[in-house]
């Protein structure tokens, strides 16, 4: 169980960085002409800001453990409230991207591995390079340009996808919500379709060479059955680790994607807080996201051991 100390170390590092922010939590008061330096001193004393850093950290940690991440000045609500309000939108986007990346990435990787060096394989491997080299924000702009600004004109109709935002009221039909999800989901998925298809391809190429695959074929099983039942399942196992490792990047990608598509999620909340210098929110977001990353890495280890009985954790 290294995860608790890991989270502690993360919180120490983040707290130290936060303590370097100018003005500290009292920054909004410093600009107020009605507040005298004496008031500031009194506030500092009341909030315990005149205490040494380790003591402030210990108190802050105590608050975190009771689920209190502080107050977000730019949103006029607590950090926990602000994050929880935006969480469904972010998870909707990330969930849709995860499903899309998994289906497309795994399928493309498997098919290019069982027919290596065919035109399809070249298309998949080239696409993987293209996707890995594409800056997310530019891809987002190009998607908006192609599908929202220009759209599709033909057969007497003009179809354009919405470029921004999300509709959450009950009046919005499901179709409308799905329509809003299309461009952000594709944008966020591109990198992971690329990475996971590339990984699945090499993982499957390894599996195809193994003895049990040869045995399965030698005893006369149909080749699709061999690929699907014996190969696919084993090639899929290491992907669990890769998915867990992708998680910090998906959160980073969500910041860019949500900002460009005006998606009301945690990523845009974070970006808006940057401009407002709302450091307690930035801090709360980073702590929350790091916690999720550590948690999902732990989960990935457990799932891995469950999928692959050869792996034993002491």
């Amino acid at each position, binding site marked *: 169980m290294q995860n608790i100390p890991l989270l502690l*170390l993360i919180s120490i590092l983040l707290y130290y960085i936060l303590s370097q*922010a*100018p003005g500290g939590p009292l920054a909004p008061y410093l600009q107020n002409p009605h507040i005298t330096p004496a008031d500031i001193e009194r506030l500092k004393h009341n909030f315990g800001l005149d205490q040494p850093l380790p003591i402030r950290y210990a108190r802050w940690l105590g608050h975190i453990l009771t689920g209190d991440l502080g107050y977000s000045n730019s949103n006029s609500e607590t950090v926990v409230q602000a994050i929880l309000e935006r969480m469904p939108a972010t998870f909707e986007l990330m969930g849709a991207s995860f499903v899309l990346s998994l289906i497309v990435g795994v399928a493309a990787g498997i098919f290019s591995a069982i027919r290596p060096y065919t035109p399809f394989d070249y298309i998949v491997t080239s696409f993987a390079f293209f996707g890995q080299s594409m*800056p997310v924000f*530019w891809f987002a702009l190009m998607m908006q*340009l192609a599908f929202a600004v220009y759209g599709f004109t033909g057969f007497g109709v003009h179809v354009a996808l919405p470029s921004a935002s999300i509709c959450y009221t009950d009046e919005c039909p499901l179709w409308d919500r799905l329509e809003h999800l299309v461009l952000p989901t594709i944008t966020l998925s591109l990198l992971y379709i690329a990475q996971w298809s590339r990984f699945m391809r090499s993982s499957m190429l390894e599996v195809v060479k193994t003895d049990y695959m040869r045995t399965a074929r030698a005893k006369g099983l149909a080749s699709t059955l061999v690929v699907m039942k014996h190969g696919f399942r084993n090639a899929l196992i290491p992907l669990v680790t890769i998915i867990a490792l992708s998680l910090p990047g998906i959160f980073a990608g969500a910041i860019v994607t949500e900002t460009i598509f005006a998606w009301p999620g945690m990523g845009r909340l974070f970006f808006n807080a940057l401009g407002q210098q709302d*450091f307690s929110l930035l*801090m709360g977001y980073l702590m929350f996201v790091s916690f999720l990353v550590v948690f999902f890495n732990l989960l990935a280890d457990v799932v891995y051991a469950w999928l692959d009985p050869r792996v034993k954790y002491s």
Partner: protein
Amino acid sequence: MAATIPVMPAPGVRDDDDVAISRNVTIKRFRKHKLALIGAVVIVLIVLAAVFAPLLHLQDPNAIDNVHWNGTPLAPGQFGHILGIDENGRDLLSRLVYGAQISLTVAVFAVVMELAIGIFIGAISGYYGGWVDFWLMRLTDVFLSIPLLPLLLMLTAIVAASSNKAALNFSVIVAIIGGLSWPATARLVRASFLQLREREFTEAARAIGNRDGRIIFRHLLPNAVAPIIVQGTLEVANVIILESTLSFLGFGIQPPTASWGNMLANAQANLTLAPWAAIFPGLAIFVTVLSINYLGDGLRDALDPNMK
């Protein structure tokens, strides 16, 4: 890998010939990788354009063409502006070329810094093992668990709040990116060192009384250099994307200095008006990063075919 027996040259045989042969094989393998060759050529062209920008007779990248600019961006190919004019009346091609200078130098300096830190931590960790290794690896875990982009954004926001956004100059961006993106390199170097320190030549170097520093840098590091070169190359591509993302979001290189990222900062607002202003800078990033990724892939195949 740990089980492989190191191939040692027979006593008395000069191993210069072996080195020469393996170098030829390396070059041959690299030349087989057509896309890596194309990538290398593209990168050389872009670097040459960036280095010799003053000789290309471009307009001043920050000069406003008051004669032809009427407040809106101009389409490519008019009045001698090959790629058009941006929303502030500046020549797009010239900003693209001068932007290459910034984006590439930020990437190279940040990667040098990140490799220096990563090699140092990875080497110490892998060579000494024990509790030094344990704590250094926990430190890398910390940096690998915090998503990099938000962490960078928070640091740049702190720097910006401490004085103003103009404080986010070249060296600050390099220091922040280079100072935070070393964990992957550290892990890579550590993995090589864990194997290398068990090899006989290491034992021999220790037996004749070399100091640890000399063993690490003169005996082990040269043997771990192939994966580091590959990693460094691919990291240049990653850092170009990272820096352009920061600059796009307004927390990287600050205008009026052109970088490929901040050229796109207003692209979304002008997307219907001036799609070309959104297309070209991003295309420059994409082509450069793609070329570097192919180059890195070719180097990986050439230097170490077992690595994948």
